[in-house]
């Protein structure tokens, strides 16, 4: 079986070697990097521009972007025909290729995120170390914790106000450098597609900008959704704990704080959403108006083959409906959750319509290809490029987030940042 044959359905005339070579994992790749970049930009809104209302969610978003970081690479590895050679991209980069920059951009970004997190958490780490050290007797877990946190502290144990102030400044600088790098990380994912001159749907200079805007939208939406879910869980735990300890904050107090944060964050979500939709529509109108050679086949893909995917799922349910949900006065938690989940779905569909939609027609402009996503993983290839491979990519960041927050808690940390 030829690679791509299992999930490609051809119609009319398609060149013999043409298949849907870039399948679900290449949809996941810009979707996941978009979430990383978006989460980081959200956390930077607080750190750089001092949007105080976002304080609560900023730390959360930052840790989440750390959890998402390795996952940006995962779909690419799952997609490669020779994954064991993936490292060649970093060892022998061929710089005329847009993909060659991945290693450098990604490493730079990873270092920025890691160092920002270190500065944000340094106070907490040092306090934990001191606390554990002061204990007379430590059990095995506590000893392990002490070793871990001592390592994380990297010997910088100074907790004087000046040192903490320095931390704060470092966080600000890192966040400021991080914004353009995060945008670059994702904008360049857009460039990978936008620069393929052989593909009539992808080739537009707007692609990187569209990708950045929708990335920020998806990142914020994911942070809102995860934030709400985590807060709800905390409320449950607190109400259970409060039976024994009435001094803990009541669930009403927690809830009002939650609503304020969510409302504030959703304003930024809407802002970036307007930007993203404007650019996408501009692209569509421009193609419609100029109607170059490829327009005939693109029109039948956009308005006929992919109509439901583009206009119902992406623009209708993924953009318009959440727009109304967030704009109607009196935003509630439940509505915000539904809205942000819809936005996430909309951005995912946008990636799908770009990646799969871009391969829905033959380069001969005389035929179509349809992607039948493999469901049951009866072979390694069908797992990698099918539903279960995609689910693996979706679940991983949440598992990582859970693990990271065991070491670096997101809530209830006292500090000045």
């Amino acid at each position: 079986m030829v690679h791509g044959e299992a999930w490609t359905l051809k119609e009319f005339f398609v060149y013999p070697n043409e298949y849907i070579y870039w399948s679900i994992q290449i949809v996941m790749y810009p979707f996941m990097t978009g979430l990383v970049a978006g989460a980081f930009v959200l956390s930077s809104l607080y750190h750089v521009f001092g949007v105080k209302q976002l304080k609560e969610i900023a730390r959360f978003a930052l840790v989440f972007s750390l959890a998402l970081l390795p996952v940006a690479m995962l779909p690419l590895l799952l997609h490669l025909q020779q994954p064991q050679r993936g490292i060649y991209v970093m060892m022998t980069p061929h710089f005329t290729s847009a993909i060659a920059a991945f290693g450098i951009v990604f490493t730079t970004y990873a270092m920025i995120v890691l160092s920002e997190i270190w500065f944000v958490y340094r106070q907490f780490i040092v306090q934990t170390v001191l606390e554990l050290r002061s204990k007379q007797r430590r059990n095995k877990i506590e000893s392990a914790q002490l070793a871990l946190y001592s390592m994380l502290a990297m010997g910088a144990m100074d907790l004087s106000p000046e040192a903490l102030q320095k931390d704060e400044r470092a966080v600000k600088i890192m966040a400021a450098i991080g914004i353009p790098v995060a945008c670059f990380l994702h904008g360049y994912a857009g460039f990978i597609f936008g620069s393929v001159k052989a593909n009539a749907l992808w080739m537009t200079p707007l692609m990187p900008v569209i990708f950045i805007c929708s990335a920020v939208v998806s990142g914020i939406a994911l942070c809102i959704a995860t934030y709400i879910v985590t807060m709800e869980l905390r409320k449950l735990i607190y109400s259970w704990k409060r039976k024994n300890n009435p001094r803990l904050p009541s669930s009403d107090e927690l809830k009002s704080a939650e609503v304020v944060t969510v409302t504030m964050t959703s304003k930024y979500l809407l802002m970036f959403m307007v930007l993203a939709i404007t650019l996408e529509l501009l692209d569509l109108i421009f193609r419609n108006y100029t109607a170059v050679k490829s327009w005939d086949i693109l029109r039948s893909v956009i308005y006929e083959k992919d109509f439901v995917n583009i206009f119902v799922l992406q623009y209708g349910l993924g953009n318009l409906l959440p727009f109304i949900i967030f704009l109607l006065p009196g935003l509630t938690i439940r509505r915000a959750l539904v809205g942000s989940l819809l936005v996430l779905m909309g951005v995912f569909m946008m990636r799908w319509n770009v990646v799969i939609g871009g391969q829905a027609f033959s380069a001969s402009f005389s035929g179509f290809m349809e992607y039948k996503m493999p469901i049951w993983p009866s072979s390694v290839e069908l797992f990698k490029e099918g539903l279960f491979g995609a689910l693996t990519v979706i679940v991983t960041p949440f598992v990582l987030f859970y693990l990271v927050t065991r070491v670096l808690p997101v809530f209830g940390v006292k500090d000045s940042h």
Partner: protein
Amino acid sequence: MINRREFCKKAMIVAGGVVLPLTLLEVFNPKRLRAERDGQGKIRWVFLVDINKCVGCGFCVKACKIENEVPYDANVTRTWVERYVVTEDGQTFIDSPKGARDGFTTQKIDQAHQGMKEINPEEIGKAFFVPKLCNQCENPACVQVCPVGATYQTQDGIVLVDRSWCIGCGYCVMGCPYGVRFFHPVYHVAEKCNFCYHRISKGMKTACVDACPFGARRIGNIRDPEDPVTKIITSEQVNVLKEEFGTKPQVFYLGLSREVK
């Protein structure tokens, strides 16, 4: 005794130096850049296809698959032949069943998932066959987009793939406007027509040229003014495919009709 601060500083410098890929410097190697861009040797391979002579027998496809060990029954091929049937009212029907490996055995047009299309012979305005293969572009998009440099252009203009270095990302497959690239079903790396480089570099013709009973396919050296292929290209009305992509294709066609995609 070195203190901690100094140690950290020096360690960072060493680590940074190690991490900086030495290949960065290689980009500025002018010799290699020239080899990658425009080889100025005595040979520049080109191909000439005479559409008027092709009958769609598919011997070229068969010969290519056997010569280049592309699995015979796999639905990918380095070269293929397309059939064009244009009706009098201007509709164009195209097909290439199995890349025309077995020729065209029925008058019905293969519309893939849409089934076989029967066309009334009375309504046919014109019909012809178009052999396709890699255009060995002067400005190859596939070489530009390869992230690891596994695909490269030789001095004599042929674009090759290093099977030991290709990571299988598929960017070259997507980047080629002509659809000549695919993943090899056995080696799982990018695969393409290379004008039978192992043959032409030993003075032989390509397998498809040797297999064509009608002389519809010819290979030549554009830098040799005495080469019959060069003479035709420079003196007759030839055309190339998809010039608008700026890839400067080097497969020339005699009798190319505007319907050809």
